[in-house]
C-alpha cells in the first residue's frame, strides 16, 4: 500500500468511521500498522529501542520475548494506551493506515475505537453480560439495533451458546475463560480494524486457552490481530508472523512464523526459542 492512497483512508476511518473502508477486498497483504524507529522511555528508563516493524492486515502477528523486554509497551503504543502513564515518553512514528497516531490532530479516543484491546487478566465490567458487550456501542452513540450486535459479537466470540439465557446476569459470574471471551466480544462489538491482545490466555487453564486460540484463528478472517504471548507453542500455532523482542527493548528478528521457529537468522533467537534462556 502506498503512502498516497492510505492517507485519505485514515481520515475517513478515524473521523467518520466510514463503513466501507473496513474490510476492503485485499489485493495483497496490505500494511496496516507501521512503526519507525520507535523509542519509548519510562522516565529515564528506556523500554523500547528503535523498533521498526510493518504489520500486515488480516495477519495474526505474535510478539514474543522474555519478561520486561517491552512487548506490552509496544502494544500500548499502537492505540496510545501509554498516554495514561504520565512518565511515559514516545519518540518515533507509529502509523496506522499511513497516519501517524501521535500527530496532534489524532484523538486517542477515536483511535481506540478503531483498535480494540484485550488484556492479560479478564476485566469485564461489573455489569450484565449484555451491557458489557454493548459498552463500546453505547459510548460511541451507536444508533442501530444494539441487541443484534450483542448477539453477533457473542457468537463471533464463541460465547453465545453458553450465555444466551443469562444475558442479564453479571459478567463477573462467568468463569475465567468465559470472562476473557466476553472481553473479546466486548472488543469486537464496535467493529474495530485491529485487535491487540496482551497475553490473553496466560491467566487461563489450558482448555480455556485453547478455545481462545481457536477463536483468534477465526477472528483473523475479519480483523488484524496482534498478540503478545509468553507461550512459544501458542505463537507457533496461531500466528502468521512472529516478532522476537529481546532484553533492552530491541526487536531482534521479525519474519514469517515458520521461518522464525524453523530457521531463525539470529543465534540469540534460536537460543531463546529452544529454551536456552528467557
Amino acid at each position, binding site marked *: 500500500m502506498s503512502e498516497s492512497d492510505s492517507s485519505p483512508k485514515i481520515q475517513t476511518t478515524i473521523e467518520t468511521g466510514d463503513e466501507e473502508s473496513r474490510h476492503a477486498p485485499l489485493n495483497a497483504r496490505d500494511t496496516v500498522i507501521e512503526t519507525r524507529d520507535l523509542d519509548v522511555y519510562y522516565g529515564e528508563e528506556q523500554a523500547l529501542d528503535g523498533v521498526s516493524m510493518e504489520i500486515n492486515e488480516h495477519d495474526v502477528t505474535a510478539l514474543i520475548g522474555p519478561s520486561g523486554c517491552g512487548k506490552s509497551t509496544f502494544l500500548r503504543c499502537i492505540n496510545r494506551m501509554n498516554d495514561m502513564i*504520565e512518565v511515559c515518553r514516545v519518540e518515533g512514528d507509529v502509523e496506522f493506515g499511513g497516519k501517524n497516531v501521535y500527530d496532534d490532530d489524532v484523538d486517542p479516543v477515536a483511535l481506540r475505537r478503531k483498535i480494540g484491546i484485550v488484556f492479560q487478566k479478564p476485566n469485564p465490567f461489573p455489569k450484565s453480560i449484555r451491557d458489557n458487550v454493548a459498552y463500546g456501542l453505547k459510548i460511541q452513540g451507536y444508533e442501530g439495533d444494539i441487541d443484534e450486535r450483542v448477539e453477533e459479537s457473542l457468537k463471533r466470540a464463541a460465547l453465545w451458546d453458553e450465555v444466551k439465557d443469562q444475558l442479564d446476569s453479571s459478567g463477573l459470574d462467568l468463569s475465567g475463560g468465559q470472562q476473557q471471551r466476553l472481553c473479546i466480544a466486548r472488543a469486537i462489538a464496535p467493529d474495530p480494524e485491529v485487535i491487540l491482545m496482551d497475553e490473553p490466555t496466560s491467566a487461563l487453564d489450558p482448555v480455556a486457552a485453547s478455545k481462545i486460540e481457536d477463536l483468534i484463528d477465526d477472528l483473523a478472517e475479519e480483523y488484524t490481530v496482534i498478540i503478545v504471548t509468553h507461550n512459544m507453542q501458542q505463537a507457533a500455532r496461531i500466528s502468521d508472523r512472529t516478532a522476537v523482542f529481546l532484553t533492552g527493548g530491541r526487536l531482534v528478528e521479525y519474519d514469517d512464523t515458520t521461518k522464525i521457529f524453523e530457521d531463525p537468522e539470529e543465534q540469540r533467537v534460536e537460543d531463546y526459542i529452544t529454551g536456552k534462556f528467557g
Partner: protein
Amino acid sequence: MATEETTSDQLGQSTALRIQQLKGQLFEVALVAATLVGIVSLLVLFAQISNDAFRPRTASSTWFLVYFGTLVAPTAAFTLYARRRPAVRTANALAFAAVFGGLLLSFVTYVVVDALSPYDVFIYAFFASLPPVLVLAYDRTTDERTYTGPLIPVSIIVGVGVAALVDGPISGPLGVAAEWIMYFGLVTVPAALLVAWLTASRRGRRTGAVAGGVVAAGGLAVAVASIAAGVDASLPIVVFSAFAVPTGYVTWWSVKTNPEGRVGIAGPFVILGGVLLGASLVDRLGIESPDSYLTPTLILESWDGLTASNAGVYPQIVGSIIIVGFMAVLAFPVGIGAAIYLEEYAPDTGLRGRLATLLEVNISNLAGVPSVVYGLLGLALFRRTLGFGTGIVVSAAGTLGLLILPIVIVSTQEALRSVPNDLRQGSYGMGASRWQTLREVVLPEAIPGTLTGTILALARAIGETAPLVIIAVATTKYSPPSGLFSSATALPLQIFAASANAKPEFRHGVVPAAAVVLLVLMLLMNATAIVIRNKYGRTN
C-alpha cells in the same frame, strides 16, 4: 548431628517450638482481653444511660409480662421461623426497609416541612425541579444528540435563584390554598411519579400511568376523608404517601415475585402490632408502667426547664435534622467533587501534581482538627466576614459542613481508589473518554463506598456540640427554626445545657433520655449506611 537424630525425633516438639507456641497463645489471650475491655465498658455505659432514661425498675412485673407476651415472644418466634427460610428473610428485609424507612421518612418530611412552612418549601421545590424536568423533556423530544447533561445542575441552581426572588410575592397569594395541597404537591406527586416510573419500567407505560394515578387518587381520597372527619389533612397525606405507598408497593412486589417468602412481609407488623397491642393493654388494665423519661412528651413537646416530666426536645430534634440536612446539601457536592478531581483528574507529576499532593496531605490532616477549631473558623467566616446573624441555621450548617468536608473527601477518595485500575483500562481501551469512563464504570463502583463514608460523616455531624457553642447557637429554644436564616437549635446543645440544670431529675433523667434520642438518630443513619453498603457491595 543430623545423622544422630531419627526422623521421628525431628517431627516431635522441641522446647524452642513449645515456647514459640506459648508466646503465640499469650499474644492471642492479650488481644481477646483488649477487645473485651473495650466492648464491655461500652456496653456498661449504654446500659447505664438507658437505665437512667427508661427506668425499667419502676415498672411492675405485669408490665414486663404484657410486653413479653405481645412483643418479645411473637418477634422471637417469627425470627426463629424466618431464620431457615431465605425467601422469607428476603421479603422480611424488604418489608422492614419499607415500613420503618417509610415511617421515618414521613416523620422527617412532616416535621421539617412544617417547621420551614409548607408554602415556602413548595415554592422552592417547584422552581428547583421544573427547569431540570424541562431540560430533560427537551432532550427527549429532539432526535439529535444533544448535550444537555451539564445544563441540569445549572438549571437547578437557576431554579433555586428564581424561587428566592419570587418567594416573597408568591407565598402571599399561595397562602389562600390549604396547607394539605402543598403537602400533596411535595410528597404525593413525587411518590406517584416514582411508582409510575417503577411500574412502567417493569410492566409497560400503560400500567405505570395507572399505578401513578391510583397513588394520586389515593392521596386525594385521604385528604377528603380527613377533612370530612374534621382533622387537618396534612399529616395523613404525608403518612399515606411516604409510608402507606412504599409499604403497599413492596407488599405487592413481594407477593408477585417471591410468593414462597411472602410471610416475611409480616415481620415489621409483628413488631408494630406488638407495641400497639402492649400499649393498649397496659392502658386498659391500668398496669403500672415504668416511670420513664423517654416519653412521647420528650419527643413531641418543647422544652420546659422547671418540670422534668414536661420537658421535650421536639424543636431540637427538628433543628438538628434541618442543620444536618442543609449541611449535606452544602458539603456533599463540594467534597465529592474535590475527591473526584484529586483522584481521577489531578496529574501525579509536575507543578500541578505537587500541588495536588500537597492538598491531599493537608486534607488528611484537616480530618483530625479538633471541632472547637472549626467552630472558631465558622465564627470568623459567617459572623465576622459575612456578617450573618448569631447562631443561625446557615452558619451552623456551614460550620459543620466545613468540619465534615475532609471526612467526605477522604472517604470518597478511598472509594474511588478501591475501583480496580483494570476497569479503567478496559474502558479507555474501548475508546471511552475520561468522563465516560468515570460515569459508566468508576462512579457506579464507587457509590456504595462513597455513600457509606458520607452517611457516617452525617452521623458524626449530628452529635457535634462544641462548634455550635462557639458560633453561639442558642442552647434552649422553644420552637424549631423557621427558615435557613432563623436562629438554629440542636439536640446535643440542649443536652449540654440541661446537664447543668439544678434539678437532679433533669441531670439524671431528661439528659440520658435525650441522649438516647440522639443515639437513635445517629444509629438510624448508620443503619442506612449499612443497608446501602450491603445492597450494592456484592461485586467483590
